[in-house]
């Protein structure tokens, strides 16, 4: 109950007109940078750090949190409308979201993303307020072996979910894992597969791969089909708002997405990618209309978007309780804390309760502001879809290239973008799923380092993976999920043979 009293005082701090203004500036800036590819929330906060040095710490941290949440909202907009995920966390949103938009249901897609994000962030922020100290005790116990088990589950579910067969999914995942090997190995500092190109030393940028495969590949594919087919404009069908059925199909995914996103986001190496992919897989399995997946199922937007925002709140758990930044934005926010000589960590809640609870309260307020800001914008955004296809895709190409150049000004980066575009085109043409490639690139290097860390700690004994109950259970789940379909298929074949 003590927490509740603090939270009320926090609302007192956050509702201070100056702080309200900081929160408003934060969410508007955040939404703007989320929509523009290339400048993510991390860079924005870094750019603003010197500006805010003279301001009061509470106000500017509240603004940074607004930017963080706003960026999470904004990133989904381009993913849905333009199939151009601005950051890795909105890759999954592009899958169903863009399909919905192309079928004239861009409005409901944006609305379910906005409301789902709101619901998820609200619940997750409450979780942050009440369970942070508890959750963090569990989170630090998560060893490299456990992370490896979690990654295996992600690999298996992703390759089994996407694509017309598990083999195609695994092939795509393999391409991603191979791309993930490129660059400096984190554990030994040695370079792998960089062929002497300095830009490859740090590996392939996830957004370059995602934008290349999704946006450029899509544009090429549409252009190639266009020679034979008549142009089909993406008119808006029905209401731009969510129908009663949309609501009915959305609310459960929102809650499930939150339940997956928040705890994984709170893990020190959890991130936003695993929960979004897991939520997508889960919704596809649980949906009453699984045949709609890949053709614009609203559950596939609602769940991952909720997971994405819940994990954003989750990353604040280790930041505020341990001083442990688990995302780029959280790292910059940590620098922000240090700038005011505040050391986030176990003492922050004790030494600066007004600041921490003010921040938590303003997260609630930022959420309300985001909803108010974003819902009216839906009507405006969907008008983008009325642009004739050739113009729209030309615009997407420009947008994709500009974003890549803004994030990493180099010619090699642009060449990679185009190369991945062709890869995406070929994969589409031969019906290979694209998302597992991105998952392989993001999680491959993590799985690699975590496995080798585990082995390093056990002095090379692989049994360590089975000695810890957490990792043993997760590896078992992953193995069953991978092998069970083959086994049952074999079994039924066997029976048929007997007949």
């Amino acid at each position, binding site marked *: 109950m003590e927490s509740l009293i603090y939270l009320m005082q926090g609302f007192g701090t956050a509702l201070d007109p100056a702080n309200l203004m900081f929160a408003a500036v934060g969410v508007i800036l955040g939404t703007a940078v989320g929509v523009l590819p290339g400048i993510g929330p*991390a860079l924005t906060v870094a750019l603003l750090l010197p500006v805010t040095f003279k301001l009061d710490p509470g106000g500017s941290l509240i603004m940074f949190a607004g930017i963080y949440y706003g960026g999470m909202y904004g990133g989904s907009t381009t993913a849905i409308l333009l199939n151009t995920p601005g950051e890795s966390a909105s890759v999954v949103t592009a899958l169903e979201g863009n399909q919905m938009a192309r079928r004239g249901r861009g409005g409901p897609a944006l609305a379910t993303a906005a409301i789902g994000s709101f619901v998820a962030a609200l619940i997750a922020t409450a979780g942050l307020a009440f369970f942070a100290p508890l959750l963090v005790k569990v989170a630090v116990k998560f060893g490299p072996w456990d992370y490896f088990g979690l990654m295996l589950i992600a690999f298996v579910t992703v390759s089994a979910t996407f694509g017309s067969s598990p083999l195609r999914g695994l092939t795509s995942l393999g391409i991603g894992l191979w791309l993930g090997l490129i660059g400096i190995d984190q554990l030994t500092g040695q370079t792998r597969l960089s062929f002497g190109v300095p830009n490859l030393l740090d590996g392939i940028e996830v957004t370059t791969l995602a934008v290349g495969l999704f946006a450029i590949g899509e544009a090429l594919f549409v252009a190639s089909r266009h020679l034979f087919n008549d142009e089909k404009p993406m008119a808006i069908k029905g209401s731009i708002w969510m129908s009663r059925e949309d609501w009915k199909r959305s609310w459960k995914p929102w809650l499930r997405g939150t339940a997956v996103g928040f705890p994984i986001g709170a893990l020190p190496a959890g991130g936003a990618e695993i929960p979004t992919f897991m939520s997508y897989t889960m919704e596809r399995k649980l949906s009453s209309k699984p045949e709609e997946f890949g053709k614009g199922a609203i559950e596939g937007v609602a769940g991952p978007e909720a997971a994405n925002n819940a994990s954003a709140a989750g990353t604040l758990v280790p930041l505020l309780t341990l001083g*442990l930044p688990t995302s780029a934005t959280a790292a910059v926010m940590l620098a922000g804390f240090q700038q005011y000589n505040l050391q986030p960590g176990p003492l922050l809640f004790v030494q600066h309760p007004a600041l921490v609870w003010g921040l938590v309260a303003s997260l609630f307020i930022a959420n309300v502001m985001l909803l108010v800001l974003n819902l009216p914008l839906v009507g405006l955004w969907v008008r983008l879809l009325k642009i004739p296809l050739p113009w729209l895709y030309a615009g997407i190409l420009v947008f994709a290239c500009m974003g890549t150049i803004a994030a990493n000004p180099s010619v090699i980066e642009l060449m990679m973008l185009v190369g991945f575009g062709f890869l995406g085109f070929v994969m589409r043409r031969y019906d290979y799923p694209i998302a597992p490639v991105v998952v392989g690139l993001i999680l491959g290097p993590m799985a690699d380092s975590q496995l080798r860390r585990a082995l390093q700690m056990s002095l090379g004994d692989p049994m360590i993976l089975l000695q810890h109950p957490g990792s043993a259970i997760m590896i078992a789940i992953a193995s069953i999920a991978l092998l069970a379909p083959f086994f049952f298929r074999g079994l039924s074949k066997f029976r048929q043979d007997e007949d």
Partner: protein
Amino acid sequence: MTYLHSKLVAAWLTAAVAVLPAALPAQAQDLELTITAPAGAGGGWDSAARSLQDVMMSTGAARSVQVINVPGAGGTVGLAQFVQSAEGSPNQMLVGGITMVGAIITNDAPYDLTKVTPIARLTGDPLVIVVPSSSPYKTMADLIEGIKKDVGRTIWAGGSAGGADHILAALVTQAAGEDPAKVNYVAYSGGGESLAAMLGGQVTAGVSGYGEWQGQIESGDLRALAISYPEPIEGIEAKPLKEQGYDIELVNWRGIFAGPGISDADKATLSAAVEKTVKSPEWQELIKARGWADYYASSDEFATFIATETDRVHAILSSIGLAQ
């Protein structure tokens, strides 16, 4: 948005600025500088560059300063780009530090720090050696005993392979009389991730910049055994390794460089501008807030320092098998 926007445009234009010839030897107060931070937003080099930007502009040491981030490979990507674009340029500078020295050696990078012009050494932070609060090791001597008993089971956590943290772990192992090549060092991408491993009790000991773990040390979640700075530091309880009888010193320094082949006049102008900044009360206040220590050295002194530091780092990295 206008602020952001102008920054972005500035970033795009930097390439164009780089090819503009150096027409006039500028006066200090109307210097228009671009500082390259060879790391992503939020890291040590990025905050050093942005702090410098802030103070140079507020003290009038320069009229305008832009910071651009060129992340990658321990700073060697940024260094390579800087060497190519800043040749003879009077208004471009690069931030770097000991991690870059290590990365140049381990990555066998195409350019090293002899290609750029040292302007000043700015800050130097102590590294700290810690154990989890539940650890049986109470002192540095206990840890050394543990290393002697089983060097392989003494698991270290710290930042990237070949960086300052790794070097310190190797030096301590060496001081315990063991082969530094045997150090069981688990590399993490930053102080945050290795902190989780420390708090989760998955490793024996950890190394990081003192500032990164200050909160956990003060709250008692981590026990600081020693710092790597040569002298005791006010406000830090842990004693230097030297004072505890181990002949080890390692400072996580950061400095600033100008492009290759700049004229003596330009070098003097830049050095004067940086010196003015570093000597200002604003800078002293800022580095204190950030938990950094002043480690200023002028251009010539810094150049000699880099030469000896490079040899030393090379020798250690060779001994742990990360360099030829």
